């Protein structure tokens, strides 16, 4: 592994080592570009992943506080965890479930397709679908996605059998074990999935793609990567010409360091990406970096989500098997006759016993709650994943009254959900209930909105600088050598789990950065 000097102003500094930052690190270093990768978390390994869920949660989760406001129900049900992101080398690719559906063509043109929606800030992507499709395909090959490019699907678990038969009985046609970046056979030097069910605790076989044990070690092998763990970026600095010059961070001993840079790429997961840009306010940029049009942190999106649990009178043992290996694609369409714009996926979802009460049944207690838990062996689960409608007022700001363990103002998340979300969620809950009842569920219960593991759109790509923060390559409109390299740049959230698209955009951005560097434009 390389070690670059703090005063080396020829390096690219990437902040965050997840799907975006980890992939970009590999793509740049293999092209001979020197990269300093700053990661706030520690480096775990297949061997160090805990198999005790509460301990795994503490090991991988971003636990620094965030505050919140607005009318969303997450405030009541998950007051201490309004957004669920990771703080570890590999970021959310350690914690994720591996689901990789693609965005649909019309989901990249929501303003055109859905028209004017009151209280919404819809915008068409500045990239054509066919252009992005090339990169999804590259990303799928890179991540070895099942059911794509000749890779077999994952086998059906007990849990999937319930989901599949219910879905078919209520008339769904496109139901399968999902597109998963989880090996259905040995590939890429990694093992096949042994259906152990501990996907979100960190996959101990490495069957699930994660930058922790794919992109990052490969980047290290080029000799061009300097990975600094437990290094928390606190501000991005700029020179008199407005171009960024480096990143200030606290190292693993809590000492402040200043790494010079030719280019800075921010990939901290939407909430923290917006926060870092805002924390980097200066005399020249009093509202934070890349924020001349007051767009940083706005249009914050998650996915219309929530769990639905079917309780049966026979055992299912949903914990046995890949956590999210099941999908219904039929509702992923724009059909206003259903009473809302956009679409959603229904995805199979299991929770381990310790996590079910707090994550999956968050506001309950007493006999009724206990009676659901008593049926743990006989439960099947669905996770709703639908398109959130962006609103300019749903945004990330700095809360100057609350400081984190680094002494920095924390992120404040404000959300008032668009009414479209409520209509979509109700429809998805109703369909999920019908699905479970079609195969004999005696009772069906659901959560309200769950804390977002998919955080997006806080520095969105836009053709017009007034509508967003970056151009179609994630390059900020304001500062040529400042890039955003995570889900923040998604113009709208679509109904697809975001990791595949984040990886695709990182692959595309790396090509652009190389060209711009060669041309001496940055």
């Amino acid at each position: 592994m390389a070690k670059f000097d703090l005063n080396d102003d020829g390096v690219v500094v990437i902040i965050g080592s997840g799907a975006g930052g980890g992939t970009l690190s590999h793509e740049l270093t293999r092209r001979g570009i020197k990269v300093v990768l700053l990661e706030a978390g520690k480096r775990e390994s297949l061997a160090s992943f805990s198999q005790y869920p509460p301990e795994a949660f503490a090991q991988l989760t971003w636990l620094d506080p965030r505050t919140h406001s607005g009318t969303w129900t997450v405030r009541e049900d998950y007051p201490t965890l309004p957004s669920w992101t990771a703080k570890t080398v590999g970021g959310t690719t350690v914690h994720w479930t591996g689901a990789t559906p693609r965005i649909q063509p019309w989901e990249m043109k929501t303003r055109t397709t859905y028209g004017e929606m009151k209280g919404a800030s819809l915008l068409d992507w500045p990239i054509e679908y066919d252009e992005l499709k090339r990169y999804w395909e590259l990303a799928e090959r890179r991540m070895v996605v099942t059911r794509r490019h000749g890779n077999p699907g994952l086998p059906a678990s007990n849990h999937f059998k319930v989901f599949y038969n219910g879905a078919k009985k209520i008339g769904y046609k496109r139901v399968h074990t999902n597109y998963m970046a989880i090996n259905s056979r040995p590939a890429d030097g990694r093992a096949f999935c042994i259906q152990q069910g501990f996907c979100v605790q960190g996959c101990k076989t490495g069957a699930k793609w994660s930058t922790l044990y794919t992109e990052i070690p490969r980047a290290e092998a080029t000799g061009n990567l300097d990975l600094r763990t437990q290094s928390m970026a606190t501000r991005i600095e700029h020179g008199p010409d407005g171009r960024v010059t480096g990143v200030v961070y606290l190292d693993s001993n809590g000492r402040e360091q200043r790494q010079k840079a030719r280019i800075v790429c921010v990939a901290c997961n939407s909430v923290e990406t917006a926060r870092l840009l805002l924390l980097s306010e200066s005399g020249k940029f009093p509202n934070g970096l890349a924020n001349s049009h007051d767009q940083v942190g706005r249009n914050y999106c998650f996915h219309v989500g929530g769990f639905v649990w079917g309780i049966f009178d026979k055992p299912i043992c949903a914990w046995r098997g890949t956590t999210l290996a099941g999908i219904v694609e039929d509702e992923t369409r724009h059909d206003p006759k259903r009473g809302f714009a956009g679409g959603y996926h229904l995805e199979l979802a299991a929770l381990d016993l310790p996590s079910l009460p707090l994550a999956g049944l968050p506001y309950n207690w007493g006999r009724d709650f206990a009676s659901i838990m008593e049926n743990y062996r006989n439960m099947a689960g669905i996770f709703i994943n639908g398109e959130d409608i962006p609103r300019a007022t749903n945004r990330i700001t700095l809360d100057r009254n609350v400081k984190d363990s680094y002494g920095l103002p924390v992120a404040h998340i404000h959300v008032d959900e668009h009414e479209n979300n409520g209509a979509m969620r109700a429809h998805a809950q109703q369909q999920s209930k019908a699905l479970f009842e079609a195969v004999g569920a005696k009772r069906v219960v659901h959560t309200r909105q769950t804390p977002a593991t998919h955080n997006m759109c806080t520095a969105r790509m836009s053709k017009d600088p007034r509508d967003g923060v970056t151009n179609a390559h994630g390059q900020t409109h304001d500062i040529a050598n400042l890039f955003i390299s995570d889900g923040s740049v998604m113009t709208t959230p679509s109904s697809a789990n975001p990791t595949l698209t984040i990886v695709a955009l990182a692959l595309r951005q790396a090509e652009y950065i190389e060209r711009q560097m060669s041309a001496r434009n940055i």
Partner: protein
Amino acid sequence: MDTHVPVDRREFLKGSTGVLTGVLAAGSPLALIAPSRVWAADLRVLTSAEGATLMAVTRTIAPHDGLEDAAYAIVVQSTDADAVKDESLRKLLKEGVATLGPSFATAPESERVAALRKIEQTPFFQTMRVKTLGTLYGTEMAYRYFGYEGEAFSKGGYLFRGFNDLRWLPEVPLADSGPMPVPAP
């Protein structure tokens, strides 16, 4: 994973302020491995009476009649341990217990539920609710009681240990799922 009640209590720990005790049910899986069916959990901040009230609170929040007291004692002991480091939590717990009064621990369930409904929005109740839900179901006793098998990596996963043994529904066509990665051993 700290889920064992010290079932063989050799000495009353120095600095203890209270103790919870009980007897494991005959036939309890834990009784088979424990040296004695008598268990005890020392408290470092709460008195025995306060501990007993919190035991009743946890059982009212998550009433599983067949789940042993020892599992609920782990919740109380863990709460007590949190309060060692956190003075405001200590105050919250002691005031909450005082509000419920001395008869709460032995009151019938309907009365306990009514008393908790009245304080449902208080930080004391919410703290105990989150603590109960977050601790109880991670205990080894809960794993056994609910039939949860937990981690399987050390046993080769569930691939050949029942991940597809459900027989009350039709099989899924191969086109919508996928082949087993390796033949059965």
